[in-house]
């Protein structure tokens, strides 16, 4: 049974701590107890940092006792994807090659969280190096969806999404390269946001595809996601692609929760074959809901979006093949075959073969292929041109409408193992999320109901122009408020896979 403290939102928790109704230490202990009780079933965490979490919570309580001002998330526990470097916890990226690696420096995002008094409970499971849509590519075994433990929680940020859904933490941090925050949020029935590229720092985020990787929040409510979005974001001189612009007013937009007069475009291309009937049904209802709340809904065509998936699976693997060259068995991480006779290149090859899983190997080779002489123009070069066409589709859409909407994923959570050895089938999970990664604009997933055929969550995706992240929150909080009123509770409260309520 989840305790009262673990059922609270991040916003409620922070006010209760600030008001002295509960201590941050009590809140943290309640979440650590919850993790101990349910994580053997969920496997959201790779590393739980109980002691350092309690001591971070105690520091918040001491600051409060001393009369110091506390930030909006002070004392709130958080589940951190194991792709950020942390000086007091290992960082594995879900890979054997970094098993036990203890980074010597701290990511900007986690520095900001700690400064804000956010309590990091531990590091969460993920597809190896963030490559996947199910967490099945983790070297440490998959996480399980709290709605149905035989199903995937999505990925690659599936551990953080599962932790938030299972009430192990009210907040989670993920990273989105092709949909790795929004897709797990959708299939777990929670909120997940990919900020505009450059809005949140990549410093200390172990790189997969640097032109796409974007850290962002996961939460059970839109307001909680907005609070975390603002705390974790902002210009960082340590990240050369960080945007030197004010953080969009996400919290104010989430509180506004009003779509009257807003122009909403339904992406015409994200429908039809390959989409589960129940997903389309709930999406259609969400669009009707927006209309009933005063939004002006039109259909918008983005003709090149169907080429986003092929372009992504050239660009991301190309960048990955370059970024992952750093895992060379020389300076840190695993080293295999160093028996005194093998030379450095042999040791590298043996180590990488032993340390990387199948999906990472596939993508490294695919990227090596796309970048190799004779194929570069036909593959990588063409993919970069398609990236321009997709950006132009967004530009012209956003001349007609303020936000675009689509289903977040074509289907609900699939069974563990169903797509494990069929890479293309797995890639299709990110069909609707990839365009925003390629164009760098902001996008979010908010729950919009359960598919009638399997009783599993469906996500509504909202997409906004670059640096107009606040619009996402305006739309999502309006949808959330109307649906919570209709249902009498939040969608995530219906998750029964853990047998408690």
């Amino acid at each position, binding site marked *: 049974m989840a305790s009262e403290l673990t059922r609270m939102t991040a916003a409620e928790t922070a006010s209760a701590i600030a008001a002295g109704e509960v201590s941050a230490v009590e809140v943290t202990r309640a979440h650590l107890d919850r993790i101990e009780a349910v994580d053997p079933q969920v496997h959201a965490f790779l590393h739980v940092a109980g002691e350092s979490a309690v001591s971070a919570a105690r520091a918040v309580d001491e600051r409060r006792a001393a009369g110091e001002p506390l930030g909006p998330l002070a004392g709130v526990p958080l589940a951190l994807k194991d792709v950020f470097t942390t000086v007091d916890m290992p960082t594995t990226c879900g890979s054997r090659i970094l098993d036990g690696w203890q980074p010597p420096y701290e990511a900007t995002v986690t520095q900001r969280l700690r400064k804000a008094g956010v309590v990091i409970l531990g590091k969460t499971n993920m597809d190896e190096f963030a490559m996947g849509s199910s967490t099945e590519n983790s070297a440490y075994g998959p996480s399980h969806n709290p709605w149905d433990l035989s199903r995937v929680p999505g990925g690659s940020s599936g551990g953080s999404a599962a932790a938030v859904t299972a009430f192990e933490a009210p907040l989670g941090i993920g990273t989105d390269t092709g949909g790795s925050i929004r897709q797990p949020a959708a299939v777990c029935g929670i909120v997940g946001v990919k900020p505009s590229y450059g809005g949140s720092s990549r410093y200390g985020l172990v790189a997969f595809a640097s032109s796409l990787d974007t850290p962002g929040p996961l939460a059970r409510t839109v307001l909680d996601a907005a609070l975390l979005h603002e705390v974790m974001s902002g210009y960082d001189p340590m990240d050369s692609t960080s945007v030197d612009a004010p953080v969009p007013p996400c919290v104010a937009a989430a509180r506004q929760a009003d779509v009257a007069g807003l122009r909403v475009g339904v992406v015409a291309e994200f429908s039809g074959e390959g989409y589960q009937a129940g997903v389309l049904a709930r999406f259609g209802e969400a669009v009707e809901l927006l209309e009933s709340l005063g939004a002006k809904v039109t259909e918008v065509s983005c003709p090149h979006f169907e080429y986003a998936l092929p372009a992504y699976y050239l660009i991301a693997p190309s960048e990955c093949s370059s970024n992952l060259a750093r895992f060379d068995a020389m300076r840190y991480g695993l080293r295999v075959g160093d028996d005194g006779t093998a030379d450095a290149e042999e040791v590298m090859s043996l180590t990488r073969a032993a340390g990387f899983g199948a999906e990472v190997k596939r993508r490294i080779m695919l990227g090596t292929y796309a970048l190799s002489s004779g194929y570069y123009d036909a*593959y990588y070069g063409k993919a970069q041109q398609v990236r321009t066409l997709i950006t132009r589709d967004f530009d012209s859409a956003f001349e007609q409408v303020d936000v675009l909407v689509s289903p977040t994923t074509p289907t609900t959570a699939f069974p563990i193992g169903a797509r494990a050895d069929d890479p293309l089938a797995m890639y299709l999970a990110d069909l609707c999320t990839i365009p925003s990664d*390629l164009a760098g604009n902001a996008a979010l997933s908010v729950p919009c109901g359960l598919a009638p055929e399997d009783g599993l969550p469906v996500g509504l995706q909202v997409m906004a122009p670059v640096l107009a992240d606040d619009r996402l929150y305006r739309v999502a909080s309006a949808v959330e408020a109307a649906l919570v009123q209709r249902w009498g509770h939040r969608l995530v409260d219906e998750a029964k896979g853990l047998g408690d309520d």
Partner: protein
Amino acid sequence: MPITRDEVAHLARLSRLALSDAELDHFAGQLDTIIAHVARVQEVAADGIPPTTHAAALTNVFREDVLVPPLGAAAVLDQAPAAEQGRFRVPRILTGD
């Protein structure tokens, strides 16, 4: 144009991945399927469309050249697979003959 097992073996060498024969067979089929799918980018990417290399609206970013203390040898070598005399110890990089 299907990708052959020999080509996959070549890619594995370039990628510094010592793959087994079974892995090469397995990946050859999968990579062929994936490459056939991603080749669809060639249907629409016409001449004259500029490439997009990244999504940030940024050109060069400059900063003042300020000295900051480095991590230090102890911190850097702490996670090394092998270290000796304050340095990384690596396998030989030259062949003997």
